[in-house]
């Protein structure tokens, strides 16, 4: 993260930026931002608790209110955390594989302007490898949701 991405000399902005901001100048705004981002939901949540419980509201319990919103069926058809389709797990595995391959393409993209036609050749080799795996998954039916 600290390492400056190599740029061509014509990009004056980045060349000048290498001089200035220290680690403090990045960490300081980030700290303020994180405090704000954590504080805003917490403040809203706290405001709700204060306003509803202590200021104006009352806590009224009854059996119907304590049921889950499931058309009155409730626990008759099992609990919610029992089991669900294995397809979701498969999608998560596919996502892991393909997203890592996307992440591999980012360093290539950054060096694309530096190389010649060899960069295109690299992409073709990568895409062939990717497509072989993709076609295998396709033929296996891993990408068909309604099968």
């Amino acid at each position, binding site marked *: *993260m600290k390492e400056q*991405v190599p*740029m*061509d000399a014509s990009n004056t*902005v*980045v060349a*000048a*930026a290498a*001089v*200035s*901001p220290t680690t403090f*100048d*990045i960490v*300081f*705004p980030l700290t*303020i*931002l994180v405090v*704000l*981002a*954590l504080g*805003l939901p917490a403040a*809203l949540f706290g*405001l*709700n608790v204060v306003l*509803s419980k202590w200021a*104006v*509201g*009352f*806590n009224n319990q009854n059996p119907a209110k304590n049921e*889950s*919103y*499931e058309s009155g069926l409730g626990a008759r058809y099992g609990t*919610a*955390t029992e089991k*669900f*389709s294995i*397809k*979701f797990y498969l*999608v*998560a595995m*596919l*996502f892991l594989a*393909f*997203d890592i391959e*996307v*992440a591999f*393409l*980012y360093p*290539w*993209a*950054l060096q*694309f*302007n530096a190389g010649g036609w060899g960069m*295109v050749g690299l*992409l073709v080799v990568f*895409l062939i490898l990717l*497509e072989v795996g993709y076609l295998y998954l396709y033929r296996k039916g891993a*990408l068909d*949701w*309604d099968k």
Partner: protein
Amino acid sequence: MLSTIIDWIAAHPYQVVGLVLPIVIPLALFQILPLLVLMERRGAAMIQDRAGPNRAYIPIPFLNVKVRGFGMIFNLTDAVKLLFKEHFTPPFVHKGYYRIAPAIPLITGLLTPALIPWFSPIVYQGGVLSGQTIDANSGILMLFAMASLSVYGVVLGSWASNSKYSLLGGMRASAMMISYEVSMGLSVIGMLMIVGSVSLTDVVEWQGQHTWGFVVQPVGFLLFLVSMFAECNRNPFDVAEGESELVAGFHTEFNGVKFMLYMSAEYLHMIVASVLIATVYFGGYQLLPIPGFGPEWVKAHVGQVLAIGLVGMALGLLGFVWVIKNRKAIHARSDSNPQDKAERAKEYGLYMAVFTLAGLGLLGAAGASWALINIERLGQGWIDFITAAVQFNIVIAKALLFCWLFVWVRWTIPRFRYDQIMDLGWKVLLNVALVNLLVTAVVAKLIG
């Protein structure tokens, strides 16, 4: 005392910007949120040809006028209602996660704008003040990393609710979001490889020197737009809360401020997505899609640019006065009761007076800025500051157009079925993104 403070600010620009930006930017985006809710309600009413939000009002005591504010008052009543709702945790939920989960999407929505460049880098005392709150080299990668975390809010919320509808909605939403994240990451690579950097400031600067991104990457832009719709859980991809199937999806069991956190996060994500689309493909803070009108040109003519923008806003307001005048005439002819007619006539009269005054004021401000804002009168520091403000407003104006696109699509296109969504994501968008990448690489090398 005052001069001491000014001297300290001038001596510590990074610290001051580092203090001001992370507070001002998220809160400014948070202020657009009610506007977006209003846009959604008015847009829905307009597209479906029905009355929009127009019942809630605030009485003004001495003028004897009811101000409905075109439905703006509904935002106020919504916030008050949700904040005053009973703080109720159902007994069947997993309490810890149930309370944490609604905050996660809002936290990511507030963190992601930190990587967006809001104005061009300012050269100051030999250093450079970046337009990004966090000027990290990882740029858009860090933005994607933080944006992906919002999936956890959906998954945790749905699982912790311990309700079947919630779980189904959450599972669908998370599977869809991670599916479209692949094509989102792939589609933006086309732009990044042309620019040769992942820093969004570099992407915008490149667009200023050449042309806007959607000209060089039309397919990538469309892919990115579709993926962003899916990431924001918006129609036609809103299976997460398919209300005809799953009650309300993953936030079925949430009430009061917890529901409010989810909803505000959804709209905040729409704003951030619009800003991101505008930044990567529509030039960010660049004024025009042709080279020669970059930040230096804007800086040299900032008074004129500001004046033209203010004249445009003034004309918009005066046009709105004309619309209200027609509305008033239509309402006067309608068959509602006389008391209602009199009230409405007064209300419309108040709006017309206020908007006419505001429009004339803006015209005056435009003239003043044309005449007064120049570098000889104000000096470099003020010109830099005004330019930054103008550029921030350029980004916001572009983003609002895409916000309207989100609303427009939602009320025009019906919801997709779930298997159609997964097929589109894995079988169409992924392959189109890969082909787009290959074509971009070959064409870029052919052109040189």
